[in-house]
């Protein structure tokens, strides 16, 4: 839960660069997105461990605060509230910047470094069962 709040910090920073109308619109899209993302999310966790042919992902009850809506942890409802306004705010921040080719190459290079150096560290082999 605390890490979910950490994701909100960059969102607040980049949203502060938008106008109030743009902020309202981004949260309107977040609410619209929530309507189908949460329904699909409830579908992916439906079935539970009793039907291994159905469920797509499953939450660890030890790691969530324990309040559930239709069997979905309440933390999950923060997903569209973060991952819809945040990309919008980021996009508005970068879309009018005329990036130099070197900058784009640098960003992509750092992203590839992340994939091949940071990801293997995060994804140690023992994580998958």
């Amino acid at each position: 839960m605390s890490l979910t709040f950490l994701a909100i910090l960059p969102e607040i920073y980049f949203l502060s660069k938008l106008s109030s109308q743009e902020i309202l619109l981004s949260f309107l899209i977040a609410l619209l997105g929530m309507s189908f993302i949460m329904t699909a999310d409830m579908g992916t966790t439906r079935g539970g461990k009793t039907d291994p042919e159905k469920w797509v992902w499953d939450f660890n009850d030890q790691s969530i605060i324990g309040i559930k809506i239709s069997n979905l942890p309440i933390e999950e409802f923060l997903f569209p509230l973060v991952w819809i306004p945040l990309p919008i705010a980021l996009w508005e921040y970068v879309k009018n910047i005329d990036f130099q080719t070197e900058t784009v190459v640098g960003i992509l290079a750092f992203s590839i470094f992340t994939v091949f150096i940071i990801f293997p560290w995060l994804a140690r082999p023992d994580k998958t069962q």
Partner: protein
Amino acid sequence: MRFTYIKLLVAIYFPPIIALILFLESKTDLLKLSVFSFVVVIYGIAWDMWATKHGRTDKLWIWRFNRKTITGLFIEHHPFDEYLFGILHIFWVVVFWEVLNGVISDFNFKILAVLVLVILWQIWVSRVFYNSQKGEPNAKLVRN
């Protein structure tokens, strides 16, 4: 059922993205948007990897994937389906935003109708998927 996750992603995101791209203003740089989606997803996936990291030696994990319902393709031990979700989701968000901004700055009933249809399509697909996933509610998890 095999490929449940990727089928859901294709149904819920592909038709809306294609429909929205058709109504994007020409000034929107799709190449820039693609690079943007890729870069944002890379950093979003880092969080996913941390959250799904688990095993006998790990103390904490938040969720895990069922290998029977994903493609079975992994990039750095993380399901390919999840990378695809990230890219499609970010792409959908920004394309929807750009088309909505176009409607606000220059009202066009046809494009507004497309936006409404896109959301209705996604709600309908998610509802059909939810109804198809009948089963017992999640039992309390037992650590492996």
